[in-house]
């Protein structure tokens, strides 16, 4: 896999996690389920990708985490967007819009 592609996919995963967290804070499984739900099952995020991404984004200052209680009273780690994370989401959204537009144009061109 070429680095560009990786970046694209990584960027996409980041964007989806940020989007999932845009409304409320969530724990890891919650984020997975939320992404599945938004994409109607198209994307299934495995823990092997999810956790490294969460920790990386936290190190980059886009997310903060704290330990909280889940619905069925288990202690879980909850993630929340920071203002930097919000800015990042906006930037990612704009970038994605540009790429999607460009791709659509390319495909529609005859």
């Amino acid at each position, binding site marked *: 896999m070429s680095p560009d592609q990786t970046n694209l996919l990584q960027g996409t995963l980041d964007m989806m996690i940020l989007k999932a967290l845009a409304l409320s804070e969530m*724990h*890891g*499984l919650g984020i997975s389920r939320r992404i599945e739900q938004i994409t109607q099952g198209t994307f299934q995020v*495995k*823990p*092997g990708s999810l*956790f*490294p991404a969460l*920790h*990386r984004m*936290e*190190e*980059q*200052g886009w997310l903060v985490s704290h330990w909280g209680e*889940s619905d*069925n009273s*288990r*202690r*879980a*780690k909850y993630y929340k967007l920071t203002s*930097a994370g919000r800015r990042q989401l906006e930037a990612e959204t704009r970038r994605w819009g540009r790429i999607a537009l460009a791709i659509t144009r390319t495909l529609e061109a005859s």
Partner: protein
Amino acid sequence: MVLSRLTSLLRNLLDQQRQERELDREVRTYELLLADEKIRAGMSPCEAHRQARLELGGVEQVKEQVREMRAGHLLETLWQDLRFGLRMLRKNLAFTLLAVLALALGVGASSVMFSAVDSILLRPLPYRSADRLVVILNHGRGPIAPANYVDWKAQSKSFETMGAAEYWTPDLTGVDRPSRLWALRMTSDILPMLGVPAMLGRFFAKEEEQGGHEYEVVLSYGLWQRQFGGDPGVLGRQISLDGKSYAIVGVMPAGFKFAPFWATKAELWAPLALGPRATQRGGNSLRIFARLAPGVGLADARAELATTTARLEQQYPGTNRDAQVVPLKEKVVGRIRPALLTMQLAVAFVLLIACANVAHMLLARGAARAGEVAVRSALGAGRLRLLQQFLAESLILATAGGILGLLLAAGGIRALVVFGPADVPRVDNVSLDWRVTLFTLSVSTLTGVIFGLAPARRAARIDPAESLKEGGRSGDSTARHRTRSLLVVTEFALALMLLAGAGLMLRTLLALQAIDPGFDPHNVLTMVVSTSGSLVSAPGHSDGFYHEMLDQVRAVPSVVSAGLTNHVPLAGDIWGYPFWIEGQSIPAPGDEPDAAYRLVFPGYFKTMAMPILRGRPIEDSDTATAPHVVVINEYLARRYWPDQDPIGKRFTLDNPAKVAAKKLNWLTVVGVVKNVVRSDWTALPEEEIFLPYSQNAGVGPYMTLVARTSIDPSPSAEPIENAIWSVDRDVTISEVQTMSAVIARANSQARFDAVLLATFAAVALVMSAVGIYGVMTYAVARRRHEIGVRMALGASRANVLANILREGMALALAGSVSGILGGLILSRLMATLLYGVRPGDPLTFGGAAALLAIVALAACYVPARDATHVDPVVALRHE
């Protein structure tokens, strides 16, 4: 963002334990939440937890993936790997020490030898455009007659400049301790030609070559420091050399040496005034130095000189023969080149064997650790992580080996300078070359990396589950075994070549030691006594002085007998003289028989224990007024009077073509002595004559005293010197040495080569033994099951033993055969180093192969015996 990365890095490094705990909890919670979900969907709790675990893909793997992404991960794991590597290496101390030692030996020995080759053979001589400098010598080694030099200088166009130099050993007197110096007299062209400017003052000028104006000297830095304390005002001062006053006009910089191949100890240079000698066509005494003219090649110069000398030979028959132009550097290092190249090849072999051995050990360990690798990858270690860990271990090994090797090399260079053979040119210039060191370090590191990574590379390919099930016997062990067998074969081939080389040198040494020098060197002390600075050197006085001196020396209690000669065998010059035998037709000029010429005092033959085969030695009765006599050597007697008694025959050293018949000085042969070695230990005997000094007084300014003592001769040196000085305080004494030391020096090159090659061969032998032992041990372990089956089916212990030994010996044999083939080719490089044995000597090669076979057999026996102890029941159950 950079800031947040940085704080994360700090947190990761500082608060690692909490981090790890939280990570574990986070991932486990995920698994629990997943299971909760599935239970809610109606799954049984047990099945739900199993499914959740499967979906998660392993808690440890997920954690490791998170860790790999963290800031500072690389740093942290590298540190971990280094620590772990050190721990593993410490746990296998024997392995580690062997590997480090092998690498250190390989790196150290090759660094020393490659540095020596670079400093001695490759680097240019320390003169300006040194590659354009040549020497012109008789047969490429002997001196030239003055008139020839004058003619060539005038008639040749190939040379930009040409100059002549002559050996000179003046006595420095008028100082606290009179001493004999090594010096050169040379024409004014030479110093400017070398392009090294004087540190102080100037060189001598052309005018000083005129007779009567030659009393100027240029000092070496060393002499200036020693004799004048480095006084910058030394210019213009007068010093007394051979009783004459010389003005100091210049001082050369430190490190300047001339000439580089002969008279290397010269520390004083004075003008050469040929005077009337300029027309002499005999009395060869000059070494000619020249710089090739721009655009002129060596071949051109040689062709031109050949034409010139051929023309001159027409004009002056019997002269101008066989003069050869030799590049100066070739003259300096040509003699040592074969030895150095042989040694270089030998150390390269040692390095290769060392690398092969380290490769063995790493592969063997890799095999032993296949299980560990499987466990580690099952626990979530990624492929890169495994590679990194094995890399760390290999690097630790290579670094340790490299550092130890460098220490060895630094010591080895000093040892080479101190213990190296006598007269190695430029040996004091040898220093550790960083490029060489870098190269050898890279080779060893690369070996460590390539072979150290093998287990990790394999681990990346194999499925941990399979590997664990198989109990460590991974699928591609056959390929690895083949690699290791190949390594063993290579090691044996290299070891055989080294053994054969060492054997050839040892046989050379034995042959050299078996040479009969023609005299008994034990308990003989020699020293050069020079009268140049004393009044006794005046005509008519020296004979009396020497006789009185001998009496005093003989009175020293430990002295058994004493005598004098102009030059003892193996040390000093040889003076050759043509002679004419009475009653034989006068040969053409240049074709006269020629003999080495020695002046002796009575007592010389007895002191040296040279057997008189016929007639009598030189005796006290052979005084100046008695009939002139000569003692000849066996070779001369056999050659010119093959079937007759030479005693009573006469010959003359005067040229009958030039001297009137009545005035010829006829020498009567009174004795024949056994042949004695001359300047070269291995040279075949040639004609030699011994004349009484008393009948030829005044020929040389110095003589060599030989004294036989009843005990170890060295302590007698001081009483003997005092005895000499009791006769005259103004004579100088130099070159005090025992005859045994002179002989040891003559053979030091061969001895050094033999010792060095034998050491290398021994190292190679041990490493090959370790190598084959390792391979066979591994082979037995691998085939435990098969051996068990065989034994269960009725194979006897002897069968099993033979089987394993056969496998090992096949490897050894394959290696030996390749080694013999390689050795037969390579030993030709050594041809010039050998004496009394031919390069491809079958006995030596056979012996080397036999020795190697015995060692291989011994090394294979232990694992083979272990194989016979395999209990079929245990071996089969083990599977």
